[in-house]
């Protein structure tokens, strides 16, 4: 029973067939808290090490067989790209990107890599109505393009603005996002391509719990070098990708107001009323009906008695 997790709980709820389909299956969601797969892997991103060489972007492009980029990967003018007031973000053609931040009081710019953070309790997964997302025991959040309908709720739900969509495709538009190289590497215990390509080991691959230990050690052993916070340790329920920074996280584009609750918790308030409405409403309104039409029925009865 210890191995029972939310997923299997849900499947159990589904066994209820129609009841599950009508929404009662949601009850299972509220039951039990899932601590996450114990051996899940992750990557620790140490922003103090990143020099913005974009090797990770090139490696990702090659590994995931993505289309050619608009500009070469050694073209650093991309750091100045501002679109609608925003710096670059992951797209259907690039699952990871690096942005540059000029932080006040820092003589060197700070670079930040963005990709799917592979949440412990992914919002994309919990918002998907065709179950296209899976959190693997290795930690990757996988996406199954074969069942995706294209409602794009996952893009609404992702607090990190990660999933992109191949709008340009007519017959098979799908969500495009980092899968931590699960198919080609993670499954076999190997590092994601970006982590391997990184020259400065900005990206340290390891068991998530080890990474948290390393991060703590780095903060402790290098006083003054880091902000005393591991971004992703607790944010939205924790993520497999973790960040260390030498400058306050909000100054390099991190959303520091996400809170530590998994996104699913915000939805639970509604999910808990579902079984109540399903069970109480019929009786309640049938009762109303009987009360409201009592007079009418009485009249009918007395009429028929006459």
């Amino acid at each position: 029973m210890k191995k029972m997790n939310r997923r299997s709980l849900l499947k159990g709820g589904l066994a209820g067939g129609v009841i599950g389909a009508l929404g009662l299956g949601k009850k299972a969601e509220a039951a039990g808290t899932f601590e996450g797969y114990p051996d899940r892997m992750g990557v620790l991103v140490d922003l103090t090490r990143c020099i913005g060489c974009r090797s990770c972007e090139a490696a990702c492009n090659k590994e995931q067989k993505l289309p050619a980029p608009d500009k070469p990967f050694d073209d650093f003018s991309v750091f100045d790209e501002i679109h609608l007031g925003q710096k670059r973000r992951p797209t259907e053609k690039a699952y990871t990107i690096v942005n540059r931040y000029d932080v006040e009081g820092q003589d060197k710019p700070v670079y930040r890599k963005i990709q799917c953070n592979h949440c412990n309790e992914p919002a994309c997964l919990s918002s998907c109505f065709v179950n296209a997302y899976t959190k693997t025991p290795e930690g990757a959040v996988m996406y199954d393009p074969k069942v995706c309908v294209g409602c794009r709720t996952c893009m609404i739900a992702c607090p990190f603005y990660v999933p992109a969509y191949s709008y340009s495709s007519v017959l098979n538009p799908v969500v495009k996002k980092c899968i931590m190289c699960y198919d080609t590497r993670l499954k076999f215990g190997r590092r994601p391509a970006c982590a391997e390509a990184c020259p400065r080991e900005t990206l340290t691959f390891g068991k998530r719990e080890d990474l948290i230990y390393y991060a703590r050690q780095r903060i402790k052993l290098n006083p003054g070098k880091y902000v005393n916070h591991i971004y992703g340790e607790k944010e939205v329920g924790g993520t497999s990708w973790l960040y260390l920074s030498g400058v306050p996280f909000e100054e390099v584009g991190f959303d520091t107001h996400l809170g530590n609750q998994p996104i699913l918790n915000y939805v639970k308030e509604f999910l808990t009323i579902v079984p109540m409405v399903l069970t109480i409403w019929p009786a309640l309104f049938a009762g109303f009906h009987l009360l409201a039409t009592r007079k009418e029925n009485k009249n009918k009865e007395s009429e028929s008695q006459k």
Partner: protein
Amino acid sequence: MLKIKKILMLMVLVPIAAFFFAGNCFAQEEEIAAGPATIILDSIAEYYEPVNFDHASHIEFAENDCAKCHHHTIGTPSTGTGNCNLCHKYEASTKIVACRGCHLSDPYSEEGKKIRKERGEVYHKDKPSLKGAYHQFCISCHEEVDGPYTCDGCHPRTEKGDKFFYSGQYAPKPSDNAGGHH
């Protein structure tokens, strides 16, 4: 397979060489100016040419203070992040001088994992790989002393590297830039 063989060979050869140079260094402790004149760094050269590292000039740059680079090991007291001597004062590991002696070229490979296991590393799991160590150490210093700190500054890119970066002859044509997303 070839690549792994190459790495394996290096792994065997390099510590031997390192040991030789280390002995050399200690033997002439007073004179210090020792070690190999150039070291070819090519353990994972794929997208870049190997680096012809001019060790001799770097000794000059470092004003004969080996510990500036060879942190943890040479120099008294040992500098850098290490409090190595607290535990390792009387151990053979402090005699290791070459970067490769401690920083594995691929700690994530099966071989690397095996070596780490054999060494029984407990406190140094977070140690960077050889590539990581070079780039962290060299670039930080180069940025300060105005040495080359771009990729091509130390190692020219190979054709394979150009392809990898979609650069040079592999650069995307301007016409491919159509279509904006936000």
